[in-house]
């Protein structure tokens, strides 16, 4: 981030997708909950449940040995939720 522009906030969904390594799927449209949404807006559907866990992961030290396993578990859950095959 450039200095002098700290107040420009990144989209919350995109931030979590980047945390999970799925930010390249942010603009992909999927059908979730009967509605067509972009993946970046997945929090609109399951945000009440996923946001605390993702925030906890965001504050977790990446050096923590539990970080990567948890990250992978959440990545699998979100990928399944939005219908994206893991690794794509």
């Amino acid at each position, binding site marked *: *981030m450039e*200095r*002098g522009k*700290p*107040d*420009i*906030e*990144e989209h919350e969904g995109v931030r979590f997708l980047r945390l999970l390594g799925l930010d390249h799927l942010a603009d992909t449209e999927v059908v*979730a909950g009967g509605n067509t949404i972009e993946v970046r807006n997945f929090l609109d*559907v*399951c*945000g*009440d*449940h*996923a*946001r*605390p*866990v*993702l*925030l*906890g*992961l*965001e*504050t*977790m030290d990446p050096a923590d040995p*539990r970080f990567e*396993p*948890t990250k992978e*578990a*959440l990545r699998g*859950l*979100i990928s*399944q*939720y939005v*219908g994206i095959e893991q690794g794509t």
Partner: protein
Amino acid sequence: MLTSEAAPPRAMPDRVSGETLHGVENIGHQQSPVDIEAISYTRVDGTVEVASSPEDAMRRCPVLGKMSVEQANVLLELASIGQEKIDAQKKPKEEFKQKPEEHKETKKPIVEQVIKEDTKTIAQSEVKETVTVTTKSLHEEMIQPQSELDKTIDAHSAKIATEPKVARVTSSDEAIQAQKLVDSPYIEQQVRDKLAGRQNIKDESSDKATNISLRIPPIEEIVITNRLDRQPTAPDAPRAEIVIDNRIMDTTVASKETTEENQEEPFLATSQDSLDDDTFIFTDTELAQEMPELFIAERDWDITDPAILPPFDPVAETLDASESIDLLPEQVAIDAETTELFEQLLAMSVEADEETTSTFVKLVGEQSEAQVPKEVTVEVTSDVNVFADFLDIQPESEETIDIETIVTNANEQPLEETFAQLIELLEGGSFDSTDVMSAIKDFSKAFAYSNREHSTEREELLVTPAITQKLLDLLRAIGYENPQEALLGLISRHDLEFLVQAMRYLAQLANPDNQHEFLRSNPVSHTFKYVIEPAATRLGRSILLLIKQQNLAYE
């Protein structure tokens, strides 16, 4: 923290649902693995589920059920941490909603300060976190005193709301305000002197002033007349008295206007009344009904009653004893025929109005036609019935008027014009004719003796036959061969008041002591009523007596 063994594998749901995550959160917050055997928890969709153990609840969760216990515990721990952050963010946001402007004012400087202090590259998330926490702490500091202030205000508001909304006036205020009513020692003394014994003020004088103000009926007007005696410069002149009205009234506009009017027009009266004390005139009608004794009694003189005579006046002492003796006997020297005629006039005067005067003139005219020689005619009454107005409309003569001219032209001009010329001459000063001047002074003495003024509100006229006799002597002195005819002509052309005003003019001007003040004042009574009062009947009686004498002379 869950410590049980790994949950048995379950069929994974097709999609991860929020309900499962919420269920996990509930389990994480509620359960205590030590002493809870059966766990009841509510899912997001509102359904209540019961698990026999935390492991059972986890196995039922579509998300956590496929995870190992260790991994599920990590998720629960992260969810707990994240939930705390969300709660921490929500709280400042709610406070910022209440104080949005204050938050904006403090946020930007804090961010700039953090950036300045950190010379290295700062991650965006770190900056946001710092800003959030700092803002929160500062906002809490700002909110705290405000809350205390609000509490204080609420406490005072509650206290005020419980107090009765009644304007309180202490008894001391009432006393002070009432004291102002009688604040003047002079007024207070006068009121006490006048009302003591009649209204029981003396018995309650020790009470508060409030009681006094309540007991006294609403007085609209209090008139205090200070009479200052003035010694006449001429030893033989009637004593003149300057009457000054000091009116003390309430704050009503009408009373103020009356006060100003009276102050602008102080009246001067030649009165032989010498009142020892001040005269109070209460114009309040209610007070007049309750305490009629406070008001000046109407004088209803009856000349046939010798017991009722004008009150003793010290001025009479200044007159020569022989003159006083000369004046009095004429008042009772009335024959029966004249008395009968005047009783008829007096009965007619009950309907006292303008009609009465015209009737009087008409009656005089009838009597004149029947008894007076033909050459005495009753002329049409003049429109100018105020002597002062008559003087104003008199043309200024180019020739200098002297007493000889007046005497020469007396029989050829109306009496009012002769009066006007004589007055003009008197205003210029005294003149040489000793006979005329003596006659004028004699008339002035007689007029001053018989006339008295009690107030500006009502003029009581007391004209005696002695005045008439002195007036006739004066007319003869200025050249009238038949003064009775001249008097009748004047009354027929104008009215009785006109003659009285002319006589008063002459009487005032003849007195050198009050001539100056008289000329500045307005000697015309504005409230003269066309009422034939006993005093007026005396004048008419005198005139008709003269007519009768004249007729007898012709016969």
